[in-house]
């Protein structure tokens, strides 16, 4: 798989800094799972984070007794166990979804367009959803406020920047106007993350708008 479209460098930096919201982070993590180039870049960015932490002024500890830390019974930060590639999906997405795409209860939101919202943590803002769009249909302009990341999981779509295939990410900001259309004969499935604070209902409403011509 040759990835042609990557998240913007500033998006990757926000991710590495831990400054990207959960919804957008899920898409970046999914892209990193399939893109070695961006994974290497993210590692360099982690190193930058380490360098910044190292160069920063210190804050004295209240208790500098390392023995207390070692025997304090605190449970250290756990890494999530490595998840094998599942259902042909990027691992971070497979972990969140917990089932193959075939078993998803899609909700029709417009002719040829189905949606499945993914849960986020209670503290998270923005939206995360899977979108399933039939051949020949447009993927509606669902932005309007904040950054938005779209990653192709199946099929392909096209817009003025080119063709987006499996693993490719379209990274747009709120001002950007675009009208992607499904490319080829295969149904296109994407994961879409938006940091827009608008209610999901409003977002879905705008989603339907371009298709119904309202």
């Amino acid at each position, binding site marked *: 798989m040759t990835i042609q479209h990557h998240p913007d460098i500033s998006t990757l930096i926000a991710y590495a800094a831990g400054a*990207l919201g959960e919804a957008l982070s899920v898409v970046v993590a999914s892209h990193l799972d399939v893109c070695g180039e961006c994974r290497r870049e993210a590692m360099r960015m982690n190193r930058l984070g380490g360098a910044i932490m190292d160069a920063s002024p210190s804050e004295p500890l209240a208790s500098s007794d390392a023995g207390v830390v070692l025997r304090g019974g605190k449970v250290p930060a756990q890494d999530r166990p490595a998840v094998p590639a599942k259902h042909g999906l990027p691992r971070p997405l497979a972990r969140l979804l917990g089932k193959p795409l075939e078993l998803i209860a899609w909700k029709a939101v417009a002719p040829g367009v189905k949606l499945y919202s993914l849960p986020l943590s209670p503290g998270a803002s923005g939206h995360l959803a899977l979108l399933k769009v039939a051949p020949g249909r447009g993927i509606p302009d669902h932005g309007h406020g904040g950054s938005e990341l779209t990653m192709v999981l199946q099929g392909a779509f096209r817009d003025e920047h080119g063709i987006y295939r499996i693993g490719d990410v379209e990274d747009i900001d709120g001002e950007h106007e675009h009208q992607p259309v499904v490319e080829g004969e295969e149904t296109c499935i994407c994961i879409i993350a938006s940091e827009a604070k608008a209610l999901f209902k409003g977002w879905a409403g705008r989603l339907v708008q371009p298709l119904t011509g309202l």
Partner: protein
Amino acid sequence: MSDLMKRVAVERDEGAFAELFRIFGPKVKAMLMRSGADAAMAEDIAQETLLSVWRKAHLFSEVKGSAVTWMFTIARNLRIDRLRREVPWQELSERELETPESSPDPEQSVGDEEEFARVRSSLSTLPEEQREILVLAFQQGLSHSEIAGRLNLPLGTVKSRMRLGYQRIREALEVRS
């Protein structure tokens, strides 16, 4: 520093760990306090981060750059989890270390220690307007729009300064020594 990490990883030397804790505990605590954690939570996360290093020291290479980077990633993930109460989607470095593509290629990479040194020195020579934005992102965990609000700059300016600053650091890594 390499020696310290080796004593922690291989010899399980508690004295070496105490030294590591003395050096880096305050740095982790400072990062968390600048991110908005109170002193108690910041101290807690600093302890947890260093404890993680002790328990898993065998998993990372014995160079300073690698250890500090690992501590940063652990502390960053705890910050997302505790302060923002979101799921930290960033993987820790163990998986990255297992990824063949990430292992240092002597033909293309300058090596962990050298790369870390170059990142640090190029960071200190960045124009202040670029450095400041990268520091706000990594140290305080501020989003692009939060940085824009803090510095009273348009969002596009924040992103472009961030890209420019990072590009300079990348260029410093490409130059053969």
